[in-house]
């Protein structure tokens, strides 16, 4: 355990220093992730006004709270690994990772956390600014917040495991843009980004229940907003646990057979 802490700390520090060199680029790449929730927040607020005040159980202030928290949850749980892995494999860069006496996912997790820590200086002020611009209906309870943090932590790992597995598809094909885009499209609908899950048609809601997207984003968001009953919270944590385990097992499987296929092109 001590060994892991020291390794993570080392990875974390190098990633932090490395990424600090790209701070402007990092800020620019965040625009999209900040703008998207604002776009859908505006769309749904407009719809709510047109309907005389609310859509389903959401008033404009509820939408504001929903999308501000969603922006934060998405920021803290997303990874870019699916877009970089094929490069790593094609360029033979993966060889460096294989030489280290530790599973390469640890370096990636540490790098991701370093990025999140660094971009916190942008995302939190943005959230505060949006708070004043959109006046959300957001109450803060310390207990809810603690449970929310737990759900957020699991969501991060779960999403990371699943996306890391999908990234490994690059061992077998060099064209994973199509797969990435399908994953992204499903996520747009099923994780509650286009609309809160309650507002989607019934069939899509059923699909959302079965797949991981909802449990990675919509669940922590609704939890934080205090929209879930105790039963729903328990159910959510169960689904998170299931998908976390599934992701973990999938990584073991794909990684082992993938590395066997890897031929270190370019080195």
């Amino acid at each position, binding site marked *: 355990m001590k060994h892991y802490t020291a390794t993570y700390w080392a990875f974390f520090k190098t990633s932090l220093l490395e990424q600090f060199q790209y701070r*402007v*680029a990092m800020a*620019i*790449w965040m*625009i*999209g992730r900040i*703008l*998207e929730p*604002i*776009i859908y927040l*505006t*769309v*749904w607020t*407009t*719809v709510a006004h*047109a*309907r005389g005040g609310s*859509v*389903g159980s959401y008033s404009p202030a509820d939408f504001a709270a929903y999308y501000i928290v969603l922006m934060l949850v998405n920021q803290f749980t997303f990874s870019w690994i699916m877009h970089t892995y094929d490069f790593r494999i094609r360029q033979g860069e993966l060889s460096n990772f294989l030489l280290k006496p530790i599973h390469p996912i640890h370096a990636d997790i540490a790098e991701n956390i370093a990025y999140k820590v660094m971009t916190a200086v942008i995302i939190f002020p943005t959230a505060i600014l949006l708070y004043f*611009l959109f006046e959300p209906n957001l109450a803060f309870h310390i207990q809810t917040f603690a449970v929310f943090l737990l759900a957020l932590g699991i969501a991060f790992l779960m999403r990371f495991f699943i996306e890391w597995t999908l990234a490994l598809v690059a061992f077998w094909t060099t*064209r994973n*843009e*199509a797969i990435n*885009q*399908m994953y992204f*499209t499903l996520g*747009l*609908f099923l994780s509650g980004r*286009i*609309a809160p899950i309650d*507002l*989607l*048609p019934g069939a899509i809601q059923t699909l959302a229940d079965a797949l991981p997207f909802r449990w990675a984003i919509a669940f922590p968001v609704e939890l934080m907003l205090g929209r879930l009953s105790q039963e729903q919270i328990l159910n959510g944590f169960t689904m998170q646990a299931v998908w976390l385990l599934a992701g973990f097992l999938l990584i073991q499987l794909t990684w082992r057979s993938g590395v066997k296929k890897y031929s270190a092109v370019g080195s």
Partner: protein
Amino acid sequence: MYYLKLIWTFFRIGILNEMAYRVNFYVQLLQSLLNLGTAIAGLAIVFSHTDTLGGWQAVDILALLGVFMFVGGVIGMVINPSMSQLMDDVLRGLFDYTLTKPCDAQFLASISQIRIWRLTDILLGAGVLIAALIYRGLDIGPREALAFAFVLCTGGSIIYSFWLMLATLTFWFLRIENILHIFQSMYEAGRWPIGIYPHWLRYILTFLVPVAFAITVPAEALSGRLTPESMVTSSLLCAILIAFSRWFWKRGLKNYSGASA
């Protein structure tokens, strides 16, 4: 005439380049169709809860989506790749070769890269637009059609000039390829009518990153809500930006020293 011939030549080179990678066509087609499907499903969800959005009917937003895809396709086919190429050339000193050609450098730099597979977005966008118009019973007269064509051209020129100015910055600050990404991100906001956004965002999307003139204004022309004011603003801004970006480009050129020479 000479310029048209050049455009055609670059287009042919684009076709020849891409013919070697035919699978890319299917990947691009799949991506374009996925994008279209996503957009239409998103529209369907929103309009399952309402009849109008900021005064726009579903079919008008569908037409707007057509314009969004069409303009996005043009940007993705010529403007974005050419401007990225320009930045790369300046960084590596290869821009010397563009300067030594007996033709206007701005023109050459603007069409140097053509990704023909992005035609899928242009065609799909045009298809969606036409489908929306047919669904409405083809209720537009020659006046609306003319106004649409006019503001689409001015809006397109505004986008081009804006993009050119961003790319021209490369003459002073070499490594800024990420700046183009600002535009790509902001462009996403254009798939909904600009009018629904809060004032500060509307302002940004109109004057700082002029998405409004390229998408919302032409779509307004089709649904008969184009005001003379926005038509005049679009033409004025177009004239100003074309002149200014040209001047800015010439200033930038003077700063170019050729990294390899």
